């Protein structure tokens, strides 16, 4: 892996260089330097031709500056264990430094969290959710497609949450994965882990603990499991998500929250 977390260095860099907005978290030079400078030059010249050849298009200048950054949570949320490569994953070691950079960069005024995830590692998911919750800048989340399992706390962690009318959220119990040895303490550990998820969700949304637990342990909804699938407005009905909406409504809400914060003099 070539990725190195360099958030502290990049933060300083972002603040000092205000003429060129940089993307969080990396501002580092490419790490893989070609050894032969002559060949490098030749490569650089051929790059434009290569783009036309490979993709049939030419590069257009990008004149676009956004004060909103977009965080996407896709596929499996990957935790301490690297998942086999057929999984599309969201890694917390990428996400957390990015959120830190969003917090630090004065150019960024709000963050949109777009979810289409099937769940994943409990601890990594909770870590991402807690980091989003801890952000001082306005955040809006939108569940597009699916926000299942550990996606639920991530969706509710934002200041305001949306769900697309066709999107679904599956609420089900945390169960043994077969990776752990079945000692008596294990069930207790699992129970406590589940409580952490329930606590986070109920603290950050309008759903009551009783309702959330009853959705989690509902029998007869899922064919091979206990739990509930909430489609669009159902998630709103139970108070889990604030509103059914589209991406434009989510961005409009985020802009309104930014203006509200500016009005209070809270934003830089």
């Amino acid at each position: 892996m070539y990725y190195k977390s360099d958030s502290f260095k990049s933060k300083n860099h972002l603040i000092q260089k205000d003429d060129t907005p940089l993307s969080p978290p990396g501002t580092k030079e490419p790490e893989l330097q070609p050894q032969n400078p002559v060949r490098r030059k030749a490569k650089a010249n051929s790059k434009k031709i290569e783009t036309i050849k490979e993709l049939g298009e030419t590069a257009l200048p990008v004149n676009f500056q956004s004060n909103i950054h977009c965080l996407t949570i896709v596929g499996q949320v990957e935790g301490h264990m690297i998942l086999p490569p057929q999984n599309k994953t969201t890694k917390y070691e990428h996400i957390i430094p990015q959120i830190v950079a969003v917090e630090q960069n004065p150019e960024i005024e709000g963050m949109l969290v777009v979810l289409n995830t099937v769940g994943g590692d409990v601890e990594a998911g909770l870590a991402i959710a807690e980091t989003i919750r801890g952000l001082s800048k306005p955040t809006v989340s939108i569940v597009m497609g699916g926000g299942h399992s550990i996606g639920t706390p991530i969706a509710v962690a934002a200041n305001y949450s949306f769900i697309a009318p066709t999107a679904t959220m599956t609420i089900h119990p945390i169960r043994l994965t077969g990776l752990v040895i079945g000692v008596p303490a294990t069930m207790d550990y699992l129970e406590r882990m589940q409580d952490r998820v329930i606590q986070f969700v109920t603290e950050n949304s309008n759903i009551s603990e009783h309702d959330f637990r009853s959705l989690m342990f509902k029998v007869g909804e899922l064919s091979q499991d206990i739990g509930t699938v909430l489609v669009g407005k159902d998630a709103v009905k139970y108070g889990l998500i604030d509103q059914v909406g589209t991406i434009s409504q989510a961005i409009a809400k985020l802009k309104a929250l930014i203006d509200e914060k500016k009005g209070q003099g809270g934003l830089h």
Partner: protein
Amino acid sequence: MMDIIYTTYPLDMVLEEKDKKEQFNFKNINYQGIDMQVEPLGWNKFRVIRLYSTDPKDYLNNDLQPGSIISL
């Protein structure tokens, strides 16, 4: 320490180890200040698979569209 995977996906699908031949060979690099996942294609030639950036601007950059070939 144990990992608990909380997902709607069947666990055997998540943890299935495919044949070595089928495995993707993706690398994570930082190019022009943007973290991204690339597929090495040969000496100093990479195909962009996905960007990890949160800046919407980066996704409008034609040179970095998924499928583009970059050289460092």
